[in-house]
């Protein structure tokens, strides 16, 4: 029983990591329909930002540096996203497969750039003291860094939800995503909205990068580990649906941890992939579907 609780906690913890890395994609992929394969590299950029901030502030200020990295990573990754949107993606609207390949090329370049800037060796991001160690809740050992990531995922999701549904900016965003022509005709500057959506989506990847520094060390290929999972979360959740992404991330996290407990890590990953493919057979539109009429 205690083991089951333990695994449920692990599942929620994996789920919150998945949610964090996929959150930005619900904007860029889900809403704009842009398949940004460099999303993983934006995560990596967020992680390296944490490293740079830490180096700049010195050893004494680990805690401050870490907290400061959150907004810094948001801005750095967001700006990278903005540049990508302006230079390339803008020219490729309506060519989703080409966008996918082009952004993959950008991902390769960013990886090599990281290698040249920071070395092929992984770099170490020190954890603030309050993230080390753990405690026991209901007989279940919980690490502080995992709790932090859950809280961060929750906060980021709430923030994203707030922007989308409560702010004027967010309403415009939704208007553009639902009907680009109509929105343009109603006087919304769709290009500006696209830019902001992309900034937000990419920035969230940067925030995820900060969290991921607390799991392992930081290297140029860090983003690659998450990109496929992140896309699967968005696809399974239903495009552009925050609610769907949350459910999908948590369900996938739980599936992963429970299956891994009964089998082994590699097999669990394979089984989860196969389950997603099977699920998409039943519900190609994902968990939360947009009501549409016909195909048009």
């Amino acid at each position, binding site marked *: 029983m205690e083991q089951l609780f333990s695994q449920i906690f692990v599942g929620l913890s994996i789920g919150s990591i998945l949610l964090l890395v996929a959150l930005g994609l619900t904007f860029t992929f889900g809403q704009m329909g842009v398949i940004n394969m460099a999303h993983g590299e934006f995560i990596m950029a967020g992680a390296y930002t944490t490293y740079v901030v830490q180096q700049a502030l010195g050893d004494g200020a680990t805690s401050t540096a870490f907290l400061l990295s959150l907004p810094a990573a948001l801005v750095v990754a967001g700006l990278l996203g903005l540049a990508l949107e302006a230079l390339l993606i803008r020219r490729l609207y309506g060519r989703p497969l080409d966008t996918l390949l082009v952004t993959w090329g950008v991902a390769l370049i960013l990886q090599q750039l990281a290698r040249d800037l920071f070395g092929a060796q992984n770099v*170490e991001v020190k954890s603030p003291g309050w993230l080390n160690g753990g405690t026991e809740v209901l007989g279940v*050992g919980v690490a502080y860094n995992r709790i932090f990531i859950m809280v961060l995922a929750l906060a980021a999701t709430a923030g994203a939800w707030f922007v989308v549904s409560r702010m004027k900016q967010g309403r415009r965003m939704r208007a553009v995503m639902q009907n680009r022509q109509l929105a343009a005709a109603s006087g919304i500057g769709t290009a500006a909205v696209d830019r902001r959506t992309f900034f937000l989506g990419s920035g969230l990847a940067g925030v995820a990068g900060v969290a991921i520094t607390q799991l392992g*060390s930081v290297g140029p290929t860090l983003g690659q*580990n998450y990109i496929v999972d992140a896309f699967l979360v968005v696809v399974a959740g239903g495009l552009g649906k925050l609610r769907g992404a949350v459910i999908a991330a948590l369900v996938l996290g739980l599936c992963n941890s429970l299956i891994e*407990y009964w089998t082994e890590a*590699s097999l669990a990953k394979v089984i989860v992939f196969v389950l997603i493919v099977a699920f998409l057979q039943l519900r190609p539109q994902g968990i939360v579907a947009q009501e549409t009429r016909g195909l048009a």
Partner: protein
Amino acid sequence: MLLAACGSDSGDSGSGGGGGGDTIKVGVLHSLSGTMAISEVSVKDAELLAIEELNAEGGVLGKKIEPVVEDGASDWPTFAEKAQKLISQDKVAATFGGWTSASRKAMLPVFERNKALLYYPVQYEGLEASPYIFYSGATTNQQIIPALEYLKTEKKAKSLYLVGSDYVFPRTANKEIKAWAAANGVKVLGEEYAPLGSTEFSTIVNKVKAANPDAVFNTLNGDSNVAFFKQLEGAGLPATKLPVVSVSIAEDEVRGIGASKVEGQIVAWNYYQTTPGAANEKFVAAYKKKYGAKRVTDDPIEAAYLQVKLWAAAVEKAGSTDVEKVKAASKGLTYDAPEGKVTIDGDNQHIYKTARIGVIQPDGLIKTVWESKGPIKPDPFLKTYPWAKGL
């Protein structure tokens, strides 16, 4: 156009070439790009240092050694392809290369086919002795078995949990460990593998915790170690409560992981930067002088360095770079390496090595806490161990 671009470098591939002209060519074949570059670049650096030193002393057979450096790109077919290129196009006298078992397995047929020499510098899972490969890293009985003996005698461990990355070395090593454990009255409570590069160890840590072993034997690769140790600590199992012996973390990896994250962990190797002796002091100084004071030496780096010196000594002794003559001259050859005196075993072309157990210090260096009584004879097939019969 394409054909012209491919070049027309024809010629036969004789064995043990590289001797024409004023120089002797040798191949240096490691991953300079891709995921393995992290580890292999340092090893390549060590080999180039050794070559430089040899050249400064006049080369071998009065000729300068000319290294031909190739990138295996962390891709096993590329290793095979580049090995073929070094042999048939560059006609190198010998090749120093490889890190992963997979890259060695990919190159092995190439060297055997062409009757050319490969020197391989990394500890590995054993169960191999190619007549065309010299193994300068440890085999199982020089690293893993001493580490197990240490756990059993010094740490009084009666039960073990095995955790490794999902690839060949951990799986094969764990098979050997289980056989050893069965014969030594030690219980293996579980065996878990994480996908390479994985940073998600919560479930594995939960399983370890539930099993409550006396010690963990860790064959995780590089980065995964950080996540594993962090999650162990988060689950209330720091190094002080649960000893973990790792066989894939050396000083160079600690540099990337961050010493603070693995401080106090136990490792098993044959050489540390802190290993005493004049030969090592000279080696460490030379390495830091050439590559920077921040760089560290470790077991594979030292093995890479010493294997170049061993090859040169064999060539001098044979008076030729001919492969068969070098092989013959290598039998029983000794050399004063940084790790101490090493000897080539004539039968399996492995090296006698001293086993050393160490503990990672806050500064990232490793302090020896136990060492074997003198160099251990290499036994890749574990023929002298009755418990290993079934393997």
